């Protein structure tokens, strides 16, 4: 499927290296994502998930969303994967290979996800077949205008949702402590 992407018509000079980088990242991410849901080793699944999350951050860099990319690396690779490894450890999951990680709905799962992929892909190809990405920050290269715009956007336009998210994080923190505490 990525060969189809690389053949973008009328590519300008910025496009070719970015397309090659995209193709490499996309192939690695898809392989790693498939391994996350098919591997027979729980710890390996967490490590493959790390590759997918890192590829996500690289894609954000490719799309010139530097701040979100750094947040992705810090929060996902730094915190969430460690949280998953703690979860694996605390639930005493089998650390080696184990054959009972999947249930017997495999073909149903394949069918559902393939139907979903075909429907989403068809509608995307119908709708966005020749939309090109327009990058704003390239014009003033060497500045952090993109991050400044992001900060303005968060603290002016989306201030109330931002505060709500911080209260949500506090509530989740207290809830996790209450749930996991041994009485």
């Amino acid at each position: 499927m990525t060969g189809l992407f690389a053949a973008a018509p009328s590519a300008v000079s910025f496009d070719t290296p970015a397309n090659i980088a995209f193709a490499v990242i996309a192939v690695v991410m898809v392989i790693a994502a498939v391994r996350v849901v098919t591997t027979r080793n729980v710890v390996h699944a967490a490590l493959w998930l790390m590759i997918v999350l890192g590829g996500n951050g690289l894609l954000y860099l490719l799309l010139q969303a530097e701040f979100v990319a750094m947040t992705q690396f810090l929060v996902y690779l730094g915190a969430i994967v460690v949280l998953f490894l703690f979860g694996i450890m605390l639930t005493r999951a089998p650390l080696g290979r184990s054959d009972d990680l999947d249930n017997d709905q495999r073909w149903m799962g394949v069918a559902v996800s393939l139907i979903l992929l075909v429907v989403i892909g068809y509608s995307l190809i119908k709708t966005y077949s020749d939309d090109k990405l327009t990058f704003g920050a390239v014009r003033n290269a060497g500045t952090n205008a993109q991050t400044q715009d992001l900060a303005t956007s968060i603290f002016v336009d989306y201030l109330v949702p931002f505060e709500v998210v911080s209260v949500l994080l506090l509530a989740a923190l207290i809830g996790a402590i209450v749930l996991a505490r041994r009485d």
Partner: protein
Amino acid sequence: MLLNQFLLLAAVLFSVGVYGVIVRRNGVLVLMSIELILNAVNINLIAFSTFWGMGGQVFALFVIAVAAAEVGVGLAIVLLIYRNKRSIDIDALDELKG
């Protein structure tokens, strides 16, 4: 770069995540598949933010924050299930089936 290459990659990752949610029995692995789905959505948001301004990046940050909260509470719930049933097999939680 085309917009569609990011959207199609996100669609593939989303479908893989849905497969994982359906097929996996281990609770921690189901949470990992949910993370795959959330990250696919984030790719969409960032790709559209190059189109329609900063809102997409702001909401991608919100999704990351909510995903962190969700993993914390979800792992606490999985831990409670483990304590009560000595296993985290999601398919064994069928008391409501009658």
